[in-house]
């Protein structure tokens, strides 16, 4: 990687200040599991790194019936936190599947949410794509087996964050801190589609830090989370889903269906949600909702199979939310 200067701020104020003077050349260093690899591949070449692991909070605080999670909290700690498990089980379920034990011991919440895409055109220096100032996305005409089937164009990346999906489902808000102050952005507005923002995947400005995830009270919902990955040991999911259902007796009153690894943002499926409301959950109704989730899927030349896999992920997440055993 290119040589860089290093700053170790003691608190959030210092960390924000450290980013500002050299905006666009300073980057925050969380767990480093994404950033350092990008730097070694010369995809990202900051002039300096601002270590935020001590500057930002890494703890969980009860707030307003919900929880506030510091962005510097490690993935391993999220996965083992009893209150997160009790109140937002889909977040725990996602956290424990991220990467490997070693990665989870370093990866931070903020880093996971803000990590850049895994797309191999983006990650390989030889391809100057949209996200690197180039004039094209290489995937539609190329090797797109891992690219998006929903919401994509002109870039076809899938959003790489595991936490983003359940956090969106649970109605998270992200606190951002910058030189002009703080702002609170709901997860639904945080992640951006390529047609809104081609180079970046979210609204975070280069001089801002994501400092906290604020989760509202979960309410009386049942959670289901299902991930499909090829290698059981260490792999990126092909498709995954978080489903939250609020029941009225034996039928669904309200549902949230959010999918991961299918679109450039964590993808909320109104179609699947509508297909569940008023129904009791069975293999058939879950399958129908999963089918609805894929109604507008537009596969590329190599990723048609993702439609099948995403359907399975949604269906099984629904069944799990209902407490029904799945494969």
């Amino acid at each position, binding site marked *: 990687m290119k040589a860089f200067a290093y700053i170790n701020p003691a608190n959030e104020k210092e960390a924000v200040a450290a980013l500002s003077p050299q905006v666009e050349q300073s980057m925050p260093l969380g767990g480093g599991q994404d950033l350092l690899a990008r730097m070694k591949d*010369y995809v990202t070449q900051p002039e300096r790194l601002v270590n935020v692991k001590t500057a930002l909070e890494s703890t969980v605080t009860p707030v307003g019936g919900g929880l506030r999670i510091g962005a510097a909290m490690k993935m391993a700690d999220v996965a083992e936190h009893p209150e997160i498990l009790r109140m937002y089980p889909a977040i725990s379920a996602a956290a424990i599947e991220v990467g490997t034990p070693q990665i989870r011991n370093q990866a931070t919440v903020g880093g996971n949410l803000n990590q850049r895409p895994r797309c191999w*055109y983006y990650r390989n220096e*030889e391809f100057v794509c949209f996200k690197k100032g180039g004039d094209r996305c290489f995937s539609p005409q*190329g*090797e797109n087996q891992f690219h998006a089937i929903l919401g994509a164009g002109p870039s076809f990346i899938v959003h790489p964050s595991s936490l983003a999906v359940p956090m969106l489902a649970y109605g998270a808000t992200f606190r951002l801190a910058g030189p002009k102050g703080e702002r609170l952005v709901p997860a639904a507005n945080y992640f951006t589609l390529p047609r809104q923002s081609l180079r970046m995947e979210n609204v975070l400005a280069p001089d801002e830090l994501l400092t906290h995830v604020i989760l509202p009270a979960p309410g009386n919902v049942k959670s289901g989370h299902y991930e499909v990955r090829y290698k*059981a*040991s260490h792999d990126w999911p092909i498709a995954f889903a978080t489903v939250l259902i609020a029941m009225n007796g034996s039928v669904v009153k309200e549902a949230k269906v959010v999918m991961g690894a299918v679109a450039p943002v964590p993808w909320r499926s109104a179609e699947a949600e509508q297909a569940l409301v008023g129904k009791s959950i069975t293999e058939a109704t879950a399958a129908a909702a999963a089918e609805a989730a894929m109604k507008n899927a537009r596969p590329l030349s190599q990723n048609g*199979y993702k439609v099948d896999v995403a359907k*399975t992920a949604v*269906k099984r997440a629904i069944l799990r939310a209902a407490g029904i055993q799945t494969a």
Partner: protein
Amino acid sequence: MANSEFDWPAKPSLVGTRVNRVDGPDKVTGRAKYTFDINRPGMLYARMVRSPYPHARVVSVDLAPALRMPGVKTALLVRDFANSKNNRVMFQGDEIAAVAADTEEHAMDAARAVKVEYEVLPHVTIVERALDGTAPAVFNGGNVRDARPAQAGDLTAGFAAAAKVVEGTYSTQVITHTCMESHGTVCEWSGDRLTAWISTQGVSGARENFASALGIPQANVRVLCQYMGGGFGSKALSVGAEGLMCAKLAKAANAPVKLMLDRKEEHLATGNRPSAESKIKAGVSADGTITAFEAESWGTGGAGATSDFPLPYLYQSKNRSRTHKNVFTNTGQQRPMRAPGHPQGSFHTEIIMDELADQVNMDPIQFRIKNLPPEAPNAMWRSYLLEGAAEFGWSKRHATGDKTPGPIKTGMGVSINTWGGGGRGPSPAHCEITSDGGVIMRLGTQDIGTGTRTLVATITADALGLRASQVRPEIGDTAFGVSALSGGSTTAASISPGIRVAAVKALDALKEKVAPALGVPAASLIASGGRIHVENEPGKGMSWADACKQIGPQPITADGDWRAGMSSSTTSGAQFAEVAVDIETGIVKVKRILVLQDCGLVVSRLTAESQVYGGVIGSLNFALFEDRILDRNTGQMLNPNMEWYLLAGMSDIPRIDVRLKDQPERGVIGLGEPPTVATAAAIALAVRNATGVTMRSLPLTPAKVLGAMRQTRA
């Protein structure tokens, strides 16, 4: 042949038993120094400059910007591109220059500062386009070379005699060796003498390679490799461009230089297993005999390299024909990869075997037995298939297509394998016994992770009645003698005889020293349990330590070499696989593998078993995960890493049961390659059995499994 004292003992004390790997403690503590670990005083770090393009003309190379960078000591061209007819680079990763600097980081900065001007040329990386003529003509003499065709019998008659005919196309992918330790060298000159530490499968061959490429006497070169992190065939044939450049940089800088490749370079430029594709048409008679086998195959071994493989593999038909085309592409050249040709041959043959068996309603095992080669050395497959079937529970195997309700389908598959693994001389070994009781067995071979050190210690200690830990193997250094490279599963069979001969001769000399002190004839003595004593009279003897005190200041030395009668060649094996396939995700999980494998006389049982586990896992990776993926438009590799170049981890490993079939009467035979041949086919056939869908292409990704199921439903 008359019995000789050198023959393997009927009741060995150590040979064939489980001896702990003698270099285990060094490896688990980190004391073992691999080439990557060698740090020499004043050492510089070097890095290669490589072409990012699959095909280009190098117009100019400007090293000056690199030479100006901090810490840079020297930079050299691989060749003078500007003034050479040989000014093209032929694959992404092809070597152009190298720089040496005081730190790795500075070397990387400098390598990136080298200014290379390219004229990018049209490339060929898609095999189909090379074959149909739509690819640019890149290679002199054409992009496609026909291999020599083969035929036998009368195909027309064969097909006429067939009750059923099956046709299919099959394919296996390019995979890379992905050794955990990358390729690389540390070179240090002393005047005109070169010492080179290199991650290699052959120190002797490396010495010869350095010497001839540098134009210096072989006697001026010493090559060391005490520990190396895997080769699998990629570190056998040469020291590589990086080795030579390292030596040249060290000479130019007058300082030791370390040049180790990184993971991306490994994937691009250190070899691979060629791809293989085939169109097969086979006929089978009602009684289950293959009456005709017609195969066209092709594949790419990269830029100017071949891709042939045996087809059909093992099973024979009287009437057969085979053609093969070597397709050249602008990709890194193939290098032998663990059992070269056999994994491809196995997959391309075994799949159609089950398809044919189904056509005549025969059990796949019975069908295989019916079509085994009528005469083959060590033809043990029938016995292994039947024995394995019983142990595996084959009788519970359902017909093609698991009818169990639910998304998880299970199935079983079977396959067989063969390999040579014979040995030869010269493979000299030198034994020393010193008066303090020490034993040295010295030879020029190397341990590439297979357990050669342990084999050396075991054979020696067995002959001398000692524990393996009492023997010091000295290997991995050209100063210790000449030996062949560790490849082709030939090491054990090549070195074992000479080791035993040297040990036995050394013992004979020790007996001569001990006999007078005991007042008995030397010929009455044996070595056993740490003592030298009269045979059948353990009390009449002395401890090893006391025996060696009789030696005096000049150690006993004895030499041995390979001799006939102690090793042979040709192994056989059968493997069974059980899988569970989730048909709603396309994901294949292997539940268990059973291996029956012979290798003649098992010398070091623990390390031999490990070789089998390792081969099976390697083949599982071939079946499910590994794939060198190129962008179809630019021809560049998209997964030159260990994130998207998939390799199994702990949770992906099935239960593996290893049954070594001892054949002590056959002497030592190699084992490294046989177990990696057939697993992939067994897995793919298990998937077929589970899903009812024939998987004809590796790797068995979810995309392929779902796609095949979709196609079958359509």
